[in-house]
């Protein structure tokens, strides 16, 4: 029971990634409609951003799998591990937001696409760092405590 609930909570992290990816995709579609000749750049920017957002969902899935198969059922820290990894939800939404605006910006000003993309990557990496902190704490709770 405890493990079932904890695994369900952990995999809920993916909700944030889904929202973020949805936002990024909607803005990317708009951006392509506005500037069809930049569609290759917009699409690759969207793909990179979505993969980063997806990574937060994968962290949730990883923790859920570890809770189901690796954690001992009578451990007291399983629920804590699940809640810790949900931090990634915010990172997923944030990365999606950043990616959506980056796509818009490339459509508006395709000639500075390199700068836009590297700025987006820095921001996404920093946002993802928060998801990584959640993952770190939850792995420590599973294996150390």
């Amino acid at each position, binding site marked *: 029971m405890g493990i079932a609930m904890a695994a369900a909570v952990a995999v809920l992290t993916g909700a944030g990634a889904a929202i973020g990816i949805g936002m990024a995709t909607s803005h990317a579609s708009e951006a392509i409609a506005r500037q069809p000749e930049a569609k290759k750049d917009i699409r690759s920017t969207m793909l*990179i951003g979505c*993969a*980063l957002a997806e*990574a937060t969902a*994968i*962290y949730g*899935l*990883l923790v859920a*799998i*570890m809770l189901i*198969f*690796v954690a001992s059922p009578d451990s007291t820290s399983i629920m804590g591990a699940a809640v810790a990894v949900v931090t990634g939800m915010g990172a997923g939404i944030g990365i999606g937001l950043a990616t959506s605006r980056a796509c818009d910006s490339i459509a508006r000003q395709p000639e500075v696409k*390199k700068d836009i993309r*590297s700025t987006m*990557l*820095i921001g996404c*990496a920093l946002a*993802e*760092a928060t998801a*990584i*902190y959640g*993952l*770190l704490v939850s792995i420590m709770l599973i294996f150390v405590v």
Partner: protein
Amino acid sequence: MFNTMLNVADIAPVAAAATQQASASADLSVEIKEQIECVVLFRIPVPFIAGGIPVYESTVVTWIIMAVFIFIAILLTRNLKIVPTTKRQAALEVCVSWLRNFCRDNIGAESDRYMPYIGTVLIYIGAANIAGMFGMKPPTKDLSVTIALALMSICLIEGATIRKHGFFGFFKHLGSPTPIMAPMNVLEIGIRPLSLCLRLFGNVVAAFIIMELIKFVIPAGIPAVFSLYFDIFDGFLQAYIFVFLTSLFIGEGLEKAEE
């Protein structure tokens, strides 16, 4: 009488299926635990150290990657000409100039000094992440490997700053833009390698375990599709992000104190 016998006959297969399922789940659990563990393949006997130096699987896979890439490098750089006449050399030049531009964009004017390191790390992490496709355990699945890579990166980042601006310049740059930011800047020295190594580790270990699960449940055919995303796309993306952030931080350190 007949009725109860029927019931028993009904229940027996169900119970058998349940125990089978339970044992499959236990198998899976053992399998995943085995995959997460870093295995010691053999020990190098050394005097004064009990049991010798353990050699982990990640080290051996790294040796294999090194051997493959040394071989490829020798093959690719044989009789190079000033004006490329072979397709091999033309392709190589495209790759090298891509790498040079990548470094120049992120690091700035002094990029050529750092380009060999950035390129080496990119190739190594890229190859390590797709090692799972060739039936090996990716070395980057081992936290020790990613910690070592991140420590190398942070030493290079801070070393580049000290080299450019001198020892005092480094401390001055810790207090920029305002002295109030100094604790944050000091913290950043620890946080940067932490997030670098855990991002790589988290993604690779997650991809690896999910791939193993898929292979366990569906033996043939379909895993190839997932492998395309988890091994190739995610693996190369993580390698790219690792070197991108490293080179960006180097560029930032070189630039910052100039103001």
